[in-house]
């Protein structure tokens, strides 16, 4: 049931896409609208990778590169 709900939400989201021109992206280009962790979160993300078992899917570390999990 939850997969159907996810698929329906995704379908609805994609269907609602409108063609946004470059000159209409003033808000989307705001530095706080960036689709990823911001630079100031670098150490936070790092300590979360050490202190928690899960990592990845955030555009950053997926494992390895440090003595963490």
């Amino acid at each position, binding site marked *: 049931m939850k997969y159907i709900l996810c698929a329906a939400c995704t379908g609805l*989201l*994609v269907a*609602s*896409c*409108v*063609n*946004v021109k*470059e000159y*209409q*992206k003033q*808000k*989307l280009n*705001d*530095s*706080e*609208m*960036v*689709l*990823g962790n911001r*630079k*100031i*979160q*670098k*150490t*936070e993300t*790092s*300590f*979360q990778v*050490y*202190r*928690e*078992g*899960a*990592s*990845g*899917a*955030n*555009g950053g570390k*997926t*494992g*390895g*590169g*440090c*003595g963490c*999990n």
Partner: protein
Amino acid sequence: MKKVFLSACTLLSLMKLQAQQKDSAFVPRKLHIDEINLVSSYYHQDGNNSAVTGGIGTEKLTDIANVLDIKLFRYDRKGRKNNFGLEMGIDHYTSASSDKIDLKANSSASSADTRFYPSVNWSRENETKGSTFGGGLSFSNEFDYQSIGVNVLYAQKTRNRNGEFTARLQAYLDKVKMIAPYELRSPSNEDVEDEGWKNRNSYSGSFSWTQVINRNLQVAVLADVVQQNGYLGLPFHRVYFTDGSVHQENLPDSRFKIPVGLRANYFLGDRFIFRAYYRYYSDNWGLSAHTADLEVPVKISPFLSISPFYRFYSQHAVKYFAPYGGHTGKDEYYTSNYDLSTFNSNFLGAGIRWAPVNGVFGWQHFHMIELRYGHYDRTNGLNSNIVSLHLQYK
């Protein structure tokens, strides 16, 4: 004469128009500094489930991290944008639990360490085709851990520039120094320098799709596939069995992880931004986790914003975890590392960001200053505080 004059004027106008067209197509090929960022953080944690002492004992740790990153770009002869990134990071930490590798020591060499991690990356963006190709190298070194990383990426935007697919392949070739708890070393091998290194290799594929939904909303779907091989525990982590005997942590030499995430950023009105993130994680050690994160930057003015945030995290333990004195000799794999146990955590805080149009303190190139504080609480008792400062030069 009138016809000659008109013809000359027309010709001059055409020549001027042609020159203007050439000017608009001209892009400087000189190397430019895009931005310079300095991020400094102070982190302090405390708890009573240290893996070094078998799941009991202090986890007090302090870390000071500094990362300097420089971004440069230049256009090549074909008009493609080449981006260069140089990053230099230095962390210094003091750890009360690492100090307990030797239980009798009051303050040993392992009580503090410095980690040094430089990296370089390059990417070439073809703005006409909307494609980007690039790669990077990284290195990390501390007393008992070394890492070399390499990555390549390819990204392609859709024709209308509202969607982008990115694929990145990464490999980390790491080495762990085999520092055993002091009492588990053979009498002939008490010198830690002689215990050698073991390999830990991590390979991952990271894929993302970003999509503009409308003028205020954009989303990203992220997925990673990660395979780790080699020595995946830490040699100085103790495990106490039910019979009171002490052992080194022992974990499988292979781990396969799949995290999947979704981001959605929405600009509400002229003042509020909603930054939402959700991740589901699963691996073949039996660990599964949910992460939900919401940050709401509020624009007090076009140049000043305040960003409260909250993050909830919940994980189910790996199948090899048991607390102090919980394992038996029948267990093939065992750990008392509470980072791999079952717990929930809450991370709450706020940031303030100031980017005045004339530069911070009137210095035009000092583009932005940001300060952020967060408090972290884990249901098994660990708590921490972090303060970060970001300075940006443009």
